């Protein structure tokens, strides 16, 4: 199963903000965490992650600082701000609404589901 690009893009902000709400983190580890959370199903690229982090920084949802690791290397750590936490809460409310609505509609149309789902699961 592959998650479509649109869905990846739509869920990107709340996912990153959610991960940063767990604690300060840096790019590579964030990407690994996303992998872990989705069981490898979410196809994230660096081209998606870093510009997104920069945008969230510009909007004031996260802040960053450079910290030196071994030798000459520096690592950029991101931390969520209060504004970011508020945004996360808002996004979460919206997603809950969407998920609830989807659950509702799938429940009432439950007899259609196996027909679609069986071949898809067979492939995966």
């Amino acid at each position: 199963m592959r998650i479509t690009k649109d869905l990846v893009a739509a869920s990107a902000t709340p996912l990153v903000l959610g991960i940063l709400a767990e604690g300060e983190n840096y790019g590579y580890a964030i990407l690994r965490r996303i992998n872990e959370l989705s069981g490898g199903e979410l196809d994230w690229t660096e081209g998606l992650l870093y510009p997104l982090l920069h945008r969230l920084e510009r909007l004031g949802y996260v802040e960053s600082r450079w910290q030196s690791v071994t030798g000459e290397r520096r690592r950029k750590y991101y931390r969520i701000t209060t504004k970011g936490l508020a945004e996360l809460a808002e996004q979460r409310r919206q997603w809950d609404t969407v998920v609830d609505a989807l659950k509702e509609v799938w429940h009432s149309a439950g007899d259609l589901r196996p027909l679609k789902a069986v071949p898809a699961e067979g492939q995966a």
Partner: protein
Amino acid sequence: MTDRDDQNGLEAQIAQWRRYVQRRRELKQSDAEELEDHLRGSVDELIAVGLRADEAFLVAVKRMGSLDELSREFAREHSERLWKQLVLTGDSDGRVAGTRSRRELLVMVLCAVGAAASIKVPELFGVTLEEDPGFYGPNLGLFALPWLAAFLAWRRQARPALIGVLVALFALGAVGANAYPLEEDSQSLVVTSIHLPIALWLVVGLAYVADDWRSSRRRMDFIRFTGEWFIYLVLIALGGGVLSGFMFGTFEAIGISPDTFISQWLLPCGAMGAVVVAGWLVEAKQSVVENIAPVLTRLFTPLFTAVLVAFLIAVGRSGNGINVEREALILFDLLLVVVLGLLLYSISARDPLAPPGLFDKLQLALVVSALLIDVLVLLEITGRITEYGTTPNKTAALGENVILLANLAWSAWLVLGFVRRRTPFAALERWQTGYLPVYAAWAWIVVLVFPPLFNYM
């Protein structure tokens, strides 16, 4: 292979990758560092699961995806980076470059202030702008251009010998402007006022090319510099016009007339300062913005060609001769200057190795039609001179005409050879850069020899 070799190989590969990343305009130094950290994280993890360093590097790079795609994504978030910004005071990226450009800014400000102050110095000796236009006219180039030359010479760390030559030439200019007893309404004064700035501008050129004054490439750079400088000067002048307009209006509204301040201080000092600032801008933004002069050339070459061809047709159809008054002669001189400028600035931006194209043919048409028109003008003028005798004005204008005609005629020949694939493009470039001393020599002759030759008429 030992672990150590492996590690060194990995570092070399990462260094190479970093250079590729840094070449991307969309990616700043800090982005490159962040991505490198990511790459290293990925490599470390792959090594931990048993891959060799070089294998791990390949896999990690592959996973990151193509740089093109990555840059595109970055550009979408940071679209301002595609508009290269001219950073005035040091950027955050390079600290060394930052201090250097700050120091440059400081020296430029000093030179600009010096130029602005220079034009007010004569007033200390009772020579004012209002009452002595006969002094300010020929000396105009001597207020600002030495400062611009000083800035350029400082920037290129010119050798003492060159500095000596520059000082001597500016001193010679001062002599040419002031030594001869010229009446305030004499023609020679006007002729000197026009030609001395040209001569001094080429002295600035000497400071620009510094130690490498024989090099054709460096001279071409100076031609580019001249075009860009002129455009910046015009832009600054427009800004200055808006500034003085507002100043006039607002102060007038509270009953204070800023007339004298604007005409005696703001305009003269601002203009002198702008000469230096424009030069600094060209130097600072050289690699930042595309040159604008060649773009304008592309735009106007077809239009000028059309006008000149139409003019030739009109002359042929109507049978009217060209009425050569003094103004007309100057007008046609200026026309040749414009045509030469169009030629020069398209040369300056052209890839010398590109094959001839439609634009080159268009250019040939432009030059040939300008030549035809000029021959008509010359025929008229020689008739007039033999009839009425010469004046400094006519002789200077005629001399310029001949110089430009010679340049354009040979250029036309070279362009023709190039279009027919007989001569390389570089020949045209060399011809134009080699011709620069001719302009300088003529301008100096007019300034230094003409006044005594024509009895200070």
